[in-house]
């Protein structure tokens, strides 16, 4: 009886080759004399999608193995505050047009560069993440509070899921720049700045997935902005926090607007600012060691 790619024994063998076997003379000779066909190599690498140590070892086997392994090594990127920062990424990948960012499907940014040389287009590095599907921006722990969201406008047309933590009302322009957006979470949305003007967008995503709305003070402004979206609201799931008495009126308004599609509703009523929802279930991001 043979073993196939889905067999645990096969997977164990691959890991052995990836971590130990590549140093053996026999394996070196094999690799030098006859490279694996790309489709076979693809099958091997596919089995290792959640084994970063082995994937890194595979990168050292041959240059031809690098593109296949990077597909998984950089699938989930999480820019932290102290290590694996966005700045360290910019230092390692000096040319924004030549980075592994296009492999990234899930991107989390917790801090943004504050000390870049004058004239540096940070947006270039951001736009390199052009295939991101899930984007989470959380500057609450870093120094990114005052950072403009403009460089992020439409940076990845593939985005389906957007989670913004501790952000401002500028976020609604960002939302409208992603045409395929389905899931939206706005956590700890700052109170509206009355000095910033707002005009209804010309286009908006269909928003057919989930909405998690947790403003710091009142649903009023957020619901009004969402109501201005020209393509309407079609959420199937809504979770929202009511912290003020009149929030129930706005919750009613939002529910009415999604009445044709809404199947799941989660209403929270707490003292203002005491509740923050748990992050959605996602695979743990892998922190690539580019530093």
């Amino acid at each position: 009886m043979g073993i196939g790619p889905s067999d645990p024994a096969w997977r164990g063998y691959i890991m052995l080759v990836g971590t130990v076997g590549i140093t053996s003379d026999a394996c070196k000779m094999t690799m030098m004399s006859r490279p694996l066909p790309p489709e076979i190599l693809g099958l091997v690498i596919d089995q290792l999608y959640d084994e970063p140590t082995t994937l890194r070892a595979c990168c050292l086997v041959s240059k031809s193995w690098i593109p296949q392994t990077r597909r998984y090594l950089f699938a989930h990127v999480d820019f932290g505050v102290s290590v694996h920062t966005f700045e360290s990424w910019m230092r390692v990948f000096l040319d924004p047009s030549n980075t592994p960012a296009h492999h990234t499907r899930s991107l989390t940014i917790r801090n943004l560069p504050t000390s870049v040389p004058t004239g540096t287009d940070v947006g270039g590095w951001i736009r390199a993440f052009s295939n991101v599907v899930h984007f989470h921006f959380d500057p609450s722990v870093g120094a990114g509070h005052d950072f403009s969201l403009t460089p992020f406008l439409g940076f990845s047309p593939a985005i389906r899921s957007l989670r913004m933590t501790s952000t401002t009302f500028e976020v609604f322009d960002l939302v409208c720049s992603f045409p395929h957006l389905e899931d939206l979470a706005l956590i700890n949305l700052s109170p509206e700045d009355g000095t910033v003007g707002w005009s209804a967008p010309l286009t908006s995503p269909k928003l057919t997935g989930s909405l998690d709305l947790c403003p710091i003070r009142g649903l009023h402004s957020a619901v009004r902005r969402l109501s201005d979206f020209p393509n309407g609201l079609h959420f199937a799931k809504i979770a929202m926090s009511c912290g003020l008495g009149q929030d129930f009126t706005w919750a009613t308004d939002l529910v009415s607007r999604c009445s044709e599609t809404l199947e799941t509703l989660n209403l929270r009523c707490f003292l203002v600012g005491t509740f923050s929802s748990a992050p959605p279930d996602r695979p743990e991001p892998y922190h690539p060691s580019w530093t």
Partner: protein
Amino acid sequence: MDVATFRGRFPDLSKAAKLKDLMFLSRACNIHWIVAALKNVEYKNLRQLTIRLETADEPEETDDEDWQDLDRLLVQFWTSYSIRPQLGYAPDSKGRERVRLPDLLPELTKRELVDLVEYSHPA
């Protein structure tokens, strides 16, 4: 929380005709809005109803009339629509159970029409 601010206010969910799964999270001292909202819910497609309650560290007064209403309403859910509610309950930060749900929902618990679940405090 200024419970008085919420008194008489509630979300009107009557237009959500396709609602299947409904969850409320609130303080145990402020369930009036939940009772009021449930009276207007469209039940045609509703399959699951969850209510999660939290209590503060300090004792809070609960409105007996609201709890009696909730007890009656949830019993009616079962008899009329076969919806078995789940009631989640978070103890205070020291693990003390300030509100005893079986006492507040006597009919529902006596007839075993509710699933009582303890969950951890989100804060």
